[in-house]
């Protein structure tokens, strides 16, 4: 692709994309550092000693560790269990393990409170409440449920590409029992995937906002992100503002402290090439009831973690008032009628428009970086974009706010910029991965058959890349629709997204309407997402499966 005409295009693309990276990420984050530095001149100690701050930092770190040590083993266990051929409905379970990510984080958190809190579903129906659900334990439990799919996908992909069945058979044929083979062969092979999932789980929990906000804040449990939110939306004194900035900076530092050593240790290991690649085949099992037990365990996990809470949410949306038993004869659509106001529809439209514009722009930006980084001079762009993964949403939002707020503060444009900056890496990675897997010979043979570079890309590369492009687009749409971390900090009058409306309604404590809004938001997301997802699956199988379905389920955990 080194024709002279494309060299010009390449240079132009390089300049445009570099400018975008600078404006979206580099300038705002530098500005954040600069403002914290100047604003707190002499007063940084004062900021750190503010009441509750140390507590929030400790909470955040302990929570991230607690979620990781439970969610990652659970996800890995599920992946190992679902390789057994004797689990009834295996193919279905593999999809079911990932589906919970379609429920927005704060909707899931809110559903849990509707299901298990005092006056919740289990209390009303069975008289068994779990009051601690509104507090650190509830936050932890929901974050675990929310993180298990991520760990599951990492472990499942790791198993499919690294633990070929013959490697385990070789251990068995060498005299190892099933357990010894697991310990001495499968787990060591899986270690890099598990470690990567752990780092990601830790980092995502560090920057998680919605679940701690919905379930922790009412009981006084604070984390760094909820403190930033409180400082910016409620605090009016300059000290809270400086505190929010300092916390935003602290959050990114915490992330970096974890990610950089992890990348140094893990990076090379994850890149260790394999001797041979075969598809991850099921492990043959016979006899015993293990398969049945596994199916039972998975059902109860999914039922208690996702299905029952969502049902409780639907029940709450359909019951007229708190305390009314959620029996069918009490059901009414009043709550829906109440919330389906012009303001809601406006917000829905804004959210949809924002998500579609952001996703489309992000797919283009993702392709741009993926193409540019093939050349030596563009490689730094790929690295920079990947680095934005460690930027917590709260940090990014605060940085953008103090950099561009005086011109476009409170507008949808600012939220759009935040999405572009935050999700760029999410769009870039799957596209870049698919491009890596595209055999160079296919493009070369198109060129040798007389196609120009653009024609070659359109006729030969577009079709095999389609699942990745569509997948990246879908990840961005779903994530943008879910997103409240940044939009709740950045919205202004007339630019509140639908997710923000739901969050605000929760804060006002209007249970029925909030439940109705949450149901609407979830439907709003699941209904269009499912057909696109099915289309991607079909494209994937008809192109001959370009590798494992890696980052699709990974990214929409926000």
């Amino acid at each position: 692709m080194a024709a002279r005409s494309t060299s010009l295009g390449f240079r132009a693309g390089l300049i445009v994309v570099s400018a975008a990276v600078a404006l979206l990420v580099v300038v705002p984050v530098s500005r954040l550092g600069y403002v914290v530095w100047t604003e707190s001149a002499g007063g940084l100690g004062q900021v750190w000693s503010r009441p509750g701050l140390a507590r929030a930092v400790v909470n955040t770190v302990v929570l991230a560790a607690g979620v990781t040590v439970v969610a990652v083993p659970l996800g890995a266990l599920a992946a190992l269990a679902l390789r057994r051929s004797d689990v009834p409905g295996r193919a279905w379970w593999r999809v079911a393990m990932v589906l919970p990510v379609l429920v927005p984080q704060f909707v899931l958190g809110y559903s849990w409170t509707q299901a298990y809190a005092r006056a919740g579903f289990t209390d009303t129906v069975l008289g068994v409440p779990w009051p601690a659900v509104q507090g650190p334990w509830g936050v932890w439990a929901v974050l675990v449920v929310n993180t298990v799919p991520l760990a599951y996908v990492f472990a499942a992909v790791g198993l499919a590409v690294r633990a070929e069945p013959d490697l385990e058979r070789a251990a068995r044929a060498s005299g190892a029992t099933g357990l010894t083979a697991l310990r001495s062969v499968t787990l060591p092979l899986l270690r890099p995937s598990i470690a990567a999932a752990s780092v990601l789980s830790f980092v995502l929990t560090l920057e998680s906002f919605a679940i701690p906000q919905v379930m922790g804040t009412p009981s006084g449990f604070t984390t760094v992100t909820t403190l930033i939110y409180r400082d910016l939306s409620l605090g009016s004194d300059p000290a809270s503002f400086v505190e929010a900035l300092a916390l935003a900076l602290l959050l990114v530092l915490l992330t970096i402290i974890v990610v950089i050593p992890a990348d140094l240790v893990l990076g090379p290991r994850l890149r260790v090439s394999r001797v041979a690649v075969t598809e991850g085949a099921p492990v043959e099992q016979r006899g015993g009831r293990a398969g049945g037990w596994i199916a039972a365990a998975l059902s109860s996990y999914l039922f208690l973690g996702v299905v029952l809470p969502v049902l409780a949410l639907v029940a709450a949306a359909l019951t007229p008032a708190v305390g009314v038993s959620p029996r069918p004869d009490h059901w009414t659509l009043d709550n829906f009628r109440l919330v389906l106001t012009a303001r809601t529809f406006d917000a829905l439209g804004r959210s949809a428009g924002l998500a579609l514009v952001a996703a489309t722009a992000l797919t283009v930006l993702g392709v741009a970086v993926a193409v540019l980084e093939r050349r030596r001079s563009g490689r730094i762009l790929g690295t920079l974009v990947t680095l934005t993964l460690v930027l917590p949403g709260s940090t990014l939002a605060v940085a953008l706010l103090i950099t561009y707020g005086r011109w476009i503060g409170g507008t949808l444009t600012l939220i759009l910029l935040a999405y572009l900056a935050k999700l760029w890496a999410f769009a870039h990675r799957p596209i870049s991965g698919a491009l890596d897997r595209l055999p160079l010979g296919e493009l070369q043979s198109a060129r040798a058959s007389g196609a120009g570079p653009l024609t070659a890309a359109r006729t030969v590369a577009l079709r095999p890349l389609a699942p990745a492009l569509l997948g990246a687009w879908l990840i961005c749409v779903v994530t943008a629709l879910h997103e409240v971390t940044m939009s709740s900090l950045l919205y202004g009058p007339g630019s509140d997204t639908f997710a923000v409306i739901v969050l605000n309604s929760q804060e006002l404590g209007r249970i029925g309407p909030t439940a109705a809004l949450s149901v609407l938001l979830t439907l709003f997301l699941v209904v269009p997402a499912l057909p696109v997802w099915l289309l991607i699956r079909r494209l994937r199988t008809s192109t001959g499966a370009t590798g494992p379905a890696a980052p699709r389920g990974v990214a929409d955990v926000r």
Partner: protein
Amino acid sequence: MSADANGVPVLEIRDLTVRYGDVEAVDAVGLNVGAGEVVALLGPSGSGKSTLLHAVAGFRPPSRGEIWLQGRRVASPEKSEPPERRDVAVVFQSYALWPHLSALDTVAYPIRRRGGRRRAAREQAAELLGRLGIGDLADRRPVELSGGEQQRVGLARALARGASLYLFDEPTAHLDTHVRGVFLDELVSRREATGAGGLYATHDAEEALGLADRVALLNSGRLVQLGTPEQVYAEPVDLWAALLTGPASLVRAPVSASADDLCTLAVGGRSVVVGTTVAVPVAERAELLVRPGWARLGGDLPGRLRSTRFRGEHTDLLVETEVGEVLIRQPGPPRHAAGQRVSWTLSRVWPLAVSASGDSSGTR
């Protein structure tokens, strides 16, 4: 060479059927491997070779039938012992070396599983690697090894298992002479003790015929023929088996008379007496197989050279004759041009659709 006359066979497969859903990947196969014997499973991909090996190794339970190792039943539809409790070692298709272990630790692995101490296991492993000529690669991981070196590590691991049956699941490359020698030496040295055998799956006829004491031809899960390499080559049960085991031509000619090892055919107007190994039934129009070495140029039969292909050591000639096209293999470079009239001689035929002689249809 069938060694199951003296004592218990190393492996005995009785009426084995393995189903995947409702597809019978292995269909009612019976097969023995004697001590010191190597049996090759020869068949195209999808013929059930791997499934058969997997059933013997214990990776897949039988749907019907039994598997006996050294006189002990290890698998039946009711009970299938796991691989680690069977006395088998496996060399895998792409060697299945563990990416996280060095060559030394890989080979020490089966010894450790037998309860060997780490140090003793490593010493033994180093000795095995040395025997295979890769003692200096002990610290390398699989990614740092070439294909041939990986094969040697894979075989060393299998040998370290000290099993009485070695299974080869279509090794991607042929065993080179040295590796094959080490393996066969091992079988010989073990014959005195308990006796060991090998079952070698391959789709390569040349490899199967050159390596094995007996060859089993598999087609869609069924055992089509079982016999010595000479038998399956010279006396195939049908055209499929004939073409699987090597190049051959099919001629059609009337058979007018037949004795035990001779028969008289009519080629054009001439009556020709040729050798065979079975009584050929007298027929108006018999289908007869001719291997490339069973005919030669020169003689009194007329023909026309259709094409020649120089293959280094020898030349393959396709000759158009009165009984059909015949492939003839001559030593040396081609001496005739395509299109030229040539004369030829037929020395031997094998009648198809006549059941093969003796025990070549199976030694149960």
